[in-house]
């Protein structure tokens, strides 16, 4: 009798706790989304990103008008489903590059403002835990990244639909089929994974530096540095012949935060856009390997910064 009772009671208690926890997380998330929505910076950064998608589109038009063969069937932007898909994804690759900056800036700003304004006190004084606050902010930033990638994709698709009007022979939007949609969504997933890493990076830097400026500045410097290092480090390892170093670089760095994205975009584009999108092709790294390394980096950064944030006593 008593065993039956306890087995009935215990799960209920667990459920109540879960609901309380989840409830407060959802409330914090709603509050953070509300703040993002009403923040002018959010809209300015979205505007900048979408502007660069347009820039990629104009580059595309320029490329095609100079190399008309590009729109021949079987070529990169040819008059077939693959060509149409490439037209859309090409715009997104530049959108992703600019979006990295956008997202790192947003992450630095969202976390950093809590340090400069001290507004966290008000929430913490009501019994909310620090790590809950931070988790909700990460979630809000991921929602921001998701909205940004959806908007960029819609813009790129709309511009692709207009392309035949501008350039004779460009693939019409009616060629959009199931497999091109899957391919576009796949590259969106690659972009999101990449941006999640950038969110973790910007937040961690803002927390370590206790300021938005460190998060934003440090994040941007890292993103540029990463491109340079991506070329220098592997070369270094060949020269020095240090086996462990080479293996470490191979395992952790070569499949850097961009590597999964590289695998998520169409092969022809990945090869063509090498310099523009900063993605280093590495035939040794498989997509799952790249994904795992990306996720390990993200989780590691999040754990470290959450631990730092949770232990920090606020203000003076």
């Amino acid at each position, binding site marked *: 009798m008593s065993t039956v009772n306890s087995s009935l009671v215990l799960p209920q208690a667990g459920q109540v706790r879960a609901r309380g926890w989840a409830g407060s997380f959802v409330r914090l998330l709603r509050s953070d989304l509300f703040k993002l929505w009403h923040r002018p910076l959010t809209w300015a950064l979205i505007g900048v990103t979408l502007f660069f998608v347009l820039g990629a589109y104009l580059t595309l038009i320029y490329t095609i008008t100079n190399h008309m063969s590009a729109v021949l069937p079987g070529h990169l932007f040819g008059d077939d489903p693959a060509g149409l898909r490439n037209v859309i994804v090409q715009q997104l690759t530049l959108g992703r590059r600019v979006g990295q900056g956008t997202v790192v800036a947003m992450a630095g700003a969202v976390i950093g403002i809590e340090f400069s304004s001290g507004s966290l006190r008000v929430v913490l004084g009501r*019994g909310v835990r620090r790590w809950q606050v931070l988790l909700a902010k990460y979630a809000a930033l991921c929602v921001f990244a998701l909205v940004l990638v959806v908007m960029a994709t819609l813009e790129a698709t709309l511009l692709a639909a207009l392309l035949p009007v501008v350039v004779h022979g460009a693939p019409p939007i009616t060629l959009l089929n199931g497999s091109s949609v899957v391919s576009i969504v796949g590259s969106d997933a690659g972009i999101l994974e990449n941006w999640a890493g950038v969110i973790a990076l910007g937040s961690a830097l803002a927390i370590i530096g206790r300021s938005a400026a460190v998060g934003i500045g440090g994040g941007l410097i890292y993103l540029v540095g990463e491109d340079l290092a991506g070329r220098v480090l592997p070369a270094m390892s060949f020269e020095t012949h240090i086996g462990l170093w080479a293996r470490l670089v191979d395992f952790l760095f070569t499949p850097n935060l961009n590597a999964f994205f590289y695998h998520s975009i169409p092969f022809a584009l990945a090869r063509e856009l090498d310099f523009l999108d900063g993605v280093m092709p590495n035939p040794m790294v498989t997509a799952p390997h790249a994904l795992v390394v990306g996720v390990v980096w993200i989780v590691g950064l999040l754990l470290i910064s959450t631990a730092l944030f949770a232990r920090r006593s606020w203000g003076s």
Partner: protein
Amino acid sequence: MDGNGLVIETKGLTKRYGSRAAVDGLDLEVARGEIFGFLGPNGAGKTTTIRMLLGLLEPDAGEVRILGRQLRRARGEVLPLIGALVEMPAFHPYLSGRDNLRALCRVLGLEDGAADSVLDLVGLGADGRRRYSTYSLGMKQRLGVAAALLGDPRLLILDEPANGLDPIGIIEMRDLLRRLARSGITVFLSSHILGEVSLLCDRVAIIREGRLVLVERVDDLLRRETVFVLDTPDPEAAERVLAGLSYVKRIWREEDRRVMVEAPGVSGNGIVRPLVQASVAVDGLRRREASLEEIFLTTVQEAEVSS
């Protein structure tokens, strides 16, 4: 829940920074429905104490009980019942005052209407839609109090709420806090100016260098003041009469027609009656407003005498 009727209870509360104790073995008891003043000069440890009351800072020793529950054990249940304004108000500069409160409403699970009603309460109804970064210090302070009032807290903890308010603002704040206390909310507020709280509080605690100097009803505290201020058109005559009284310890002139009279343990009658009997005109008589420093001095002297 609150068996002994105490809303705040601290025992031996201590916080050290390096070798210096910012708060040193503090014992406080605040009863339900009280307006309790927490007085002390700058750096006395008021903010540090308030941070510990709110779980924003871990004490090095001692414990905090809120509404009868140990804060350490029941944070999640206790803290949502407290509204607080710690040190300077802190909000997002790019949002309007109202949107800052609406963001908080989401955290606390309240409807937006709650934001509007607390804005009206603190007299910010008309400025609610302006960006927070354009607010004056007094307006920021009011918004801080408004945020503390969200969610109908049972205990209000305000750290120097009169900071930055103009005289009219201070009077309005006083009225607001009185109204809240009448509705059953316990108010705990800190200040470094005695005059600010003497008109409002039922009881005050005074701390200095982290230690409790005294806890007393405000009426009794003001009665400790032994210096009277006498305004008279004929100060020379008044001084002659008062000098003849055995219980007058000291007499001096502060302005042309203002005589200061130190007379411990005497009511105003003991000064006025002899003057009237000697036909000296009296324009006014009141106790001088005690300053915190003087209270410290007399308390320290008393402690030395009694030991």
